[in-house]
């Protein structure tokens, strides 16, 4: 493969991975606090639809992005309220969120165009790609990593920041404790319920941004199933990454890359049919799951939140 091909491959991979990584990071933080949010797909769709609609009508891409983030926060707040305060089942609540988000975004997509028509086919202000002057000169990595849109660049900074927060700060430590042993955290004065709310809503924000990236940067338009299952992929990615931000980045590149690559590979005439390539990530995720559960020590080392999925009820604990 020539250098140009590598660069173009890498560029597409990164582009495809950005929204996936945003969503995955959001779910990582949510799950780290002990809450399983299966509504990622719905939140991303709402993020995409809202961002596009607001951007179109206000002519500001940033406003669209901001509102998308807000919408993500609002939707995940509903999930937090139901699961943390009302102690409802996390699986069902997440699925309800997906249903709701899918429906509402579709509805909006058909009705928020000019004069109440469809948004499909419209043009709205978007986040264009641009290259960063000095950094783009780096061989191979330069033209691919540093020729992206602003959201990607923000992500480059966000990723290490989140990693630092999680592993090097006191609040990050508390988050890790809450997801693994909420009783111990509670006894030591850490507010378990508040943490769950906080991180679920934060996760929702990132998911909203992830959706916005799809309609405002990656695909630049609105279509009904614009996420194409990326929300579900993000959930798989969280496990694949064993709840770690940097590994999530690797995973997002892998998943996103495979997705984007399938056309290239078909064109190049490879034997492996595209869907099989697409299946590999899920298959690997199952393997990772088996690995983590089977080797108890792996699980502890890799930090799967032990309290994931269980509502924390102080009264029942005694």
């Amino acid at each position, binding site marked *: 493969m020539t250098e140009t091909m590598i660069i173009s491959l890498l560029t597409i991979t990164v582009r495809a991975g950005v929204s996936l990584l945003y969503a995955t990071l959001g779910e990582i933080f949510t799950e780290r606090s002990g809450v399983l949010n299966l509504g990622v797909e719905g939140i991303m769709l709402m993020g995409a639809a809202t961002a596009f609609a607001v951007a179109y009508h206000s002519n500001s891409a940033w406003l669209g992005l901001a509102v998308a983030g807000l919408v993500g926060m609002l939707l995940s707040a509903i999930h937090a309220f139901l699961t943390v305060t009302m102690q409802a089942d996390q699986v069902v609540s997440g699925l309800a969120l997906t*249903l709701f988000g899918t429906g509402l975004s579709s509805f909006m997509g058909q009705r928020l165009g000019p004069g109440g028509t469809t948004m499909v086919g419209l043009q709205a202000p978007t986040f264009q790609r641009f290259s960063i002057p000095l950094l783009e000169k780096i061989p191979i990595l330069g033209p691919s990593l540093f020729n992206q849109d602003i959201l990607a660049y923000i992500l480059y900074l966000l990723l290490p920041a989140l990693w630092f927060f999680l592993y090097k700060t006191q609040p990050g430590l508390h988050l890790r404790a809450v997801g693994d042993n909420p009783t111990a955290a509670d006894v030591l004065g850490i507010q378990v319920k508040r943490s769950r709310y906080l991180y679920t809503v934060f996760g929702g924000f990132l998911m909203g941004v992830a959706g916005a990236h799809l309609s405002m940067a990656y695909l630049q338009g609105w279509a009904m199933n614009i996420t194409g299952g990326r929300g*579900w992929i993000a959930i798989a990615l969280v496990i694949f990454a064993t709840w770690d931000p940097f590994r999530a980045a690797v995973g997002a590149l892998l998943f996103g890359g495979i997705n984007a690559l399938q056309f290239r590979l078909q064109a190049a005439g490879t034997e492996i049919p595209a869907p099989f390539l697409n299946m590999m990530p899920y298959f690997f995720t199952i393997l990772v799951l088996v690995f983590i559960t089977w080797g108890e020590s792996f699980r502890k080392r890799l930090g799967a939140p032990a309290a994931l999925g269980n509502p924390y009820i102080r009264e029942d604990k005694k």
Partner: protein
Amino acid sequence: MKIKFERRLKEAKWAVFVVPIVSFILALGFGGLLLLAFGINPVKAFQVMIQGSLGGRYAITETVVKAIPLMLTGLGVSVAFRMLFWNIGAEGQLALGGIAASYVALFLSDSLPNFLTLPMMVIFGMAAGAIWALIPALLKAYLNVNEILTTLMMNYIAILMVEYLYLGPWRDPDGYGFPGSAPFPDEAILPRLIGRVHLGIVFALIAAFIIWLIMSRMRWGYEIRLIGENPRAAKYAGISTTKNMILVMLLSGALSGLAGMAEVSGIAHRLYQGLTAGYGYTAIIVSWLASLNPWAVLFVSLFMAALTVGGDQLQVAMGIPAAVALVLQGAILFFVLGGWVFINYRVRIIRTTEATQVGELHD
């Protein structure tokens, strides 16, 4: 001041009925507001929805048609949930069932006498769904791997398999580019009863009966119930959790596989894109709303199907996006989820932050 939830001594019976009804009303209210926000008359919209789903023979048959896969997958899922096995994989099990049934229809029907084709499709469909469910079951039973995540992953793999097949090797040569397999021969098509309602409804009714029979009249049902309620007591009573996990999942997967067979054979008459339209996920909601009761599953499936069909009608008649149905479904669920807590807990507002634990006796 804090709001505390206290566990009730007994389930509040009134809440079991009141909560769904109130939730439905609240959701309708929410939906109505949404429609108003977009300049649509909610009353008229709801009227159209009811008309489209329940008004007249065509409407009702369409509702039933949409309900059939929900019924079958809902029943399958509810059996697994009884044992606290969170089978999120109905979607994939349905897909595999469709694939297997399509295989018979497209490739084996020639070598089979006509009257055997459908039965073989049923058997293959159920078997495929069962096998697809078996893998996560084994992983959980022997390695204790979280079943929510494994069944979810299996869904993707299954959906991709379907896609691969109807876009690739099983693609309809005369299809003019429409995504789907070649159409099934006549002997592979489920006969229709009324309108588009096909034999699948009979499958659903039989399945409901069988599940009901198992749960309420058979030893196995008692064992499943006990495992779901208190696995330690079940072990003490000599019941094997591993064996039952596997058996129950085989049954669960088989039912979803049957749903897949019914869809490809009774509705589309081919393996097609719309097979994986989310029935498997809606099934979870259906069985949850039905409190895992088989007859309630039938009823709730009809209800959800009515919403969907009503939504379609809304699109056709008033140009309002059919997606409204999804919004309503989601909203109903939210309200039910929120209201569910009142069945088992009482709300108490307390003024001080006194710890109120009961004394713990040493073991």
